[in-house]
């Protein structure tokens, strides 16, 4: 009797074990809904061929928001100065093309990302020892210093008038830029796909898991031996590099850059976008950017005042009722529907 009891228990135990293991092993597999955003992006080219300049800027904003999600959504670092790295990438590419004659676009993007990433390591090493208001102010101050510094040397940076009329080589030596922004759209989409692939891998890796741990309970992370500061600086640098690449693409697709890329408004905007879509979800960046920029495009032209009021109201409502953003709202709806379907 006892033997068969223990046998049943071990079989049940085995089942629980393998179920648990499978869950973790399978978690990073691609699921079919993940193809949706990409299909939509491709589809937009054919449905809205005359809105492709807007489309490129939207894709660039998604990349920027993704970089923020890494540090805000996954590692829990609150920053209002991420535009610093976007701007660094943007200006690296611009200045490289003017001063160094570096007009090859793809390597330019990597160069912009590398510069931003290196600065991210240095800055992060210093400021990530702090949290809360101190860290917030340091991030704001750093971006502002870059902007003011750029203005002091406006002979070099073009100041707030910027550096217009930049030119870049055709993509892969072959694809020319056209007036409708078609080449730029595919360029931005390809870049976003590559970046997303990398970010997704990081997020599902043990390192990504450790970031979540740092966000959820940093005290515990210290006590299990996690090199918290090193982890944070690493992810901050990666995030800075990606923001820099977004900035580089921005300069290339606009053939123009000004110091407004460092604006506090820009840092605040990308945060609002990410919160709107949902942090820590990767696809929140997609949804938030799409919803925000489409509405901004339509409404802010009609009345900038109403647009601003609407955004303010949205933020207030989001914090009070929808802390997990649109994706979170979607989750709740899905759960309620599933609950209703169960007998």
């Amino acid at each position, binding site marked *: 009797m006892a033997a068969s009891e223990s046998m049943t228990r071990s079989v049940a135990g085995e089942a629980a074990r393998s179920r648990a293991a499978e869950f973790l092993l399978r978690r990073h597999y691609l699921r079919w809904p993940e193809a949706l955003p990409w299909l939509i992006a491709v589809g937009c080219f054919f449905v809205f061929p005359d809105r492709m300049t807007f489309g490129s800027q939207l894709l660039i904003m998604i990349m920027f928001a993704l970089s923020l999600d890494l540090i*805000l959504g996954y590692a829990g670092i*609150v920053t*209002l100065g991420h535009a610093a790295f976007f701007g660094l990438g943007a200006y690296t590419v611009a200045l490289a093309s003017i001063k160094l004659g570096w007009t090859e676009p793809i390597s330019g993007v990597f160069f912009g990302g590398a510069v931003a990433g290196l600065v991210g390591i240095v800055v992060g090493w*210093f*400021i990530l*020892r*702090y949290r*809360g*208001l*101190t860290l*917030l*102010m*340091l991030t*704001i*101050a*750093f971006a*502002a*210093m870059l902007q*003011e*510094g750029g*203005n*002091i040397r*406006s002979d070099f940076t073009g100041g707030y008038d910027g550096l217009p009329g930049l030119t870049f080589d055709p993509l892969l030596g072959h694809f020319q830029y056209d007036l409708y922004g078609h080449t730029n759209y595919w360029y931005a989409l390809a870049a976003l796909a590559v970046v997303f692939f990398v970010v997704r891998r990081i997020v599902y890796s043990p390192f990504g898991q450790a970031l979540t741990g740092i966000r959820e309970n940093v005290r515990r992370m210290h006590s299990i031996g996690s090199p918290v500061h090193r982890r944070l600086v690493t992810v901050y640098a990666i995030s800075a590099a990606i923001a820099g690449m977004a900035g580089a693409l921005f300069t290339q697709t606009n053939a123009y850059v000004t110091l407004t890329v460092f604006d*506090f408004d820009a840092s*605040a905007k990308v*945060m*609002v976008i990410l*919160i709107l879509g949902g942090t820590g979800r990767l696809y929140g960046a997609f949804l938030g950017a799409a919803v925000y920029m489409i509405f901004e495009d339509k409404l802010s032209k009609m009345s900038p*005042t*109403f647009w*601003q*009021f609407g*955004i*303010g*109201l*949205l*933020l*207030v409502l*989001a*914090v*009070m009722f929808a*802390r997990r953003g649109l994706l979170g709202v979607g989750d709740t709806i899905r759960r309620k529907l599933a609950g209703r379907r169960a007998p």
Partner: protein
Amino acid sequence: MSHAANIVISILFDGLAYAMFLFITSVGLSVTMGLMNFVNLAHGAFAMVGGYIVVSLTRSLGIDFVPALVIAAVLVGFISVPFERLLYRHLYKATDLEQVLLTIGLAFMAIATFTYFYGPIPKSVPLPHWLEGDINLGFRAFPSYRAFLIIVGAVLVTVLWYAFERTNIGARIRAAVDNRRMAESVGINVDRLFTLTFAVGSGLAALGGGFAIQLFGLTPYFAVLYLVLFLIVVATGGLGSLKGTLLAALVIGIIDTGGKYMFPQAGNFFVYLITVVVLLIKPAGFYGRE
């Protein structure tokens, strides 16, 4: 008087006036953040609203500037109470990020509302004749308006210092800032204390906003434009510290004025530089608690 000495005195004087403005507007933010750990980014909006109340009172109702300042401060102080009671109260336990987002949202709504009613063009206020022109102190003449601001600031510093250090209520506030739980267990009603400090702080912000009209011009965007500056004063001064806010206001006010005099193209660069240097050395600010 030598040219260099003249410049130094100008910088000190203007810097002191600027510092007084920063102090008056930021002290409320510092105490409320230190007391409740609540990040209130709508504080700048209270200052902005105060400014517009002064504008309306003086231009539409013909009230004199100084009484208008007082009325605006008291009004905003009263209006802030329902905000705190009905809205902010629910978020004391929320994360920093949520507080940031909610209060920024409120600030945006305020800016949009006031742009709708007042328009985006900077407003000015009619000043009484004794605030226009200069005061002549013998060796030099000083603009009366700024001199007035400095005097008001000094008076407020004294009054606040006295209230903080010498009164019962001040002691209770200091205790609650220092250790909230302990203060509550000793019977201090921290919630009511907070509503009081919040109201006073918002009223002072409105006063600062009223003064700002003539110094910087008033547009609805004032609410966020100067918010970063207020946050800098609060962060570098140390949350919940009167001394800290005053010191930070003086440092930033004078160095920023000096910087702009000597390197006009640098804009706010020196302010941000000070912020970074101070925070890296003393992350909790001059007089903040670690």
